[in-house]
């Protein structure tokens, strides 16, 4: 049973890593925010498997709802494309 949990943990962490890599490399900031929210979903699965439901409940509301929305508000006040 614990093996299945560890496999789910590994998959969710790797997917979370992929999402965070995409969020960093993406030049369209709005897409980057959405990738970041995907990373939040994956990390919340990891928190659930690591038996931290208290952290999960705060994280899922902040990382996926509030943080994403704050960044979308901020992007709407600046430009959408990242200029290097």
């Amino acid at each position, binding site marked *: 049973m614990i093996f299945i949990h560890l496999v789910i943990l590994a998959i969710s962490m790797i997917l979370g890593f992929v999402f965070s890599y995409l969020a960093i*490399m993406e030049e369209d900031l709005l897409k980057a925010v959405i990738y970041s929210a995907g990373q939040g979903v994956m990390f919340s699965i990891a928190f659930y498997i690591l038996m931290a439901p208290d952290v999960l409940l705060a994280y899922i509301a902040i990382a996926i709802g509030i943080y994403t929305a704050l960044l979308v508000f*901020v992007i709407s006040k600046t430009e959408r494309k990242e200029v290097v």
Partner: protein
Amino acid sequence: MKRGHIIALGVFIALILLVSLGITFVGKVPMTTDVRPLGLFYLKNSYFGNYAARSPEVVTSILWDYRGLDTLFETGVFFLAIISALALFRIEKKEEKVKEKGEGFTFIVKDTVRIISVLIVAVSAAIALHGHLTPGGGFQGGSALAVVPLLIIVAFSKYALEGRGLTKDTAMIVRSIGLISIIILVLIPLAAGGYLMQNLPVFPSHILGQLTSGSLVFYNLFEYIAVGAGFTAVFLLLSIPEKVFHKIIGGEKE
């Protein structure tokens, strides 16, 4: 996706897998199955015993009872963050409403938001008010509650909230009520001859036959109100259109 991205991702994923497999099978990290003495104390004494908080939820009893002052100052940090956001926006005049022409979202989005917001309010209240029984608590419930005004601002507009009386000032008043109630709760045991933030002998562990774990349920309730209203105030400020904001501040010209 570009080819370089795929290569970089592949290398990193392979590294993660190698390191984790290596630690598991070669490094032989000892898997601890027993609880440390301090953790054991909390587990044994959160419900039974002389130092109990009478709460089956160990995390909440640590947050608001054993390490209560930590959480109190954490609430203070959150309070300062909201205050600094308000100071940055420095809006005193009443803003005028801009009517922009447009269709808005379809009725599918609007009706979904109407149904979902009621559900989220109920779930967040359950998270906060059952904080002393199940995982969750005031901050978790409050941040879940703050998603509701956010959804309404996105699906309708900020004027849908302000037309129903939920302006920035109301949110700030509600938040201040929550914070003042927390401070009063902190000071009550002092008046009853105990210590700051003392829980059990001062507050009753059962009210009307229901387990309320002393002051935990009250702390969770007021933190829920304060966090939800604080986030709402910040969202209402952030959703002011940029044109209106420039007009109020009177700074740079378009």
